[in-house]
């Protein structure tokens, strides 16, 4: 029991360290003005997606072995719904904005 507790503490600490690094990178870039233009948005987006994955794996303990299939299915389903609704809304509104200019 104690051994597994140690292991899970190191899991949380690894996740925490990764999350700190993935937060620090975009903050430092924006704060220092090191990059400009679309490159910054790309870095922010990539860091955010990676950090979400870090949280899911190290804090919510999701993996393909121990997590029940239904939970993964619902996560995937929510991701698809979000892509359709958010992607669709942004596509329509950006297009509208573009045509109104």
């Amino acid at each position, binding site marked *: *029991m*104690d051994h*597994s*507790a140690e292991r*899970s*503490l190191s899991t*949380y*600490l690894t*996740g*925490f360290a990764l*999350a*700190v690094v993935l*937060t620090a990178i*975009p*903050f430092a870039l*924006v*704060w220092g003005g090191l990059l400009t233009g679309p490159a*910054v*948005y790309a870095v*922010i*987006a990539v*860091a*955010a997606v990676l*950090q*979400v994955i870090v*949280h*899911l794996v190290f*804090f*919510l303990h999701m993996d393909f072995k121990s997590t*029940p299939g*239904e*939970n993964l299915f*619902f*996560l995937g*389903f*929510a991701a698809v*719904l*979000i892509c359709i*609704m*958010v992607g669709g*809304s*942004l596509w329509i*509104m950006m297009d509208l904005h573009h045509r109104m200019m």
Partner: protein
Amino acid sequence: MSETTLNSELLEHEEKKSLESREFGFWVYLMTDAVIFALLFASYVVLSKNSAAGPTSKDLFDLGHTAGETVLLLLSSLTFGVATIAMTSDHAGRVVLWLFITLLLGLGFLAMEMLEFYGMIAQGAGPGTSGFLSAFFTLVGTHGLHVAFGAIGICVMIGQVMIKGLTLPVRSRLVRLGLFWHFLDIVWIGIFSVVYLPGVM
């Protein structure tokens, strides 16, 4: 005699099954909550430039303040994790201690957010000023409201661990509250990446 042990075994088995299905139900709730937040993000992105000649995100956002909030919330995720570990090794006292630290960090986050909102409203940048600010207050306020409910949940669970001890249902509730708390941290990643960082550029 053997019948009663059989019955209690059956009862324990059924209890475990019922707790498992509750955990799944909670997961489904979290996913629907994720959809709500995603749509609030979409509204914010659409409205973020519509400041109606009022203050823009560049005038209002302070990245240092956001970094402070991020640190508090991330640390609180870690301390909740430590509380979960204490639960698996049956240390009720340590669970209460780490939950209390998590609560303090969460309340610190809420205090910083309230301060930010109060400062903005005092500058005349309330939710009624422009489309940008309506979307901002709705998105960030909804997240803050979730954190407030999470803090209430932590208070309740501290009480339950102290009074009932680490029974099976209490453990299950603690696990579900942990899911909720870590989920809120994930939403916050979206908030600083979509709202604050692009807002100050």
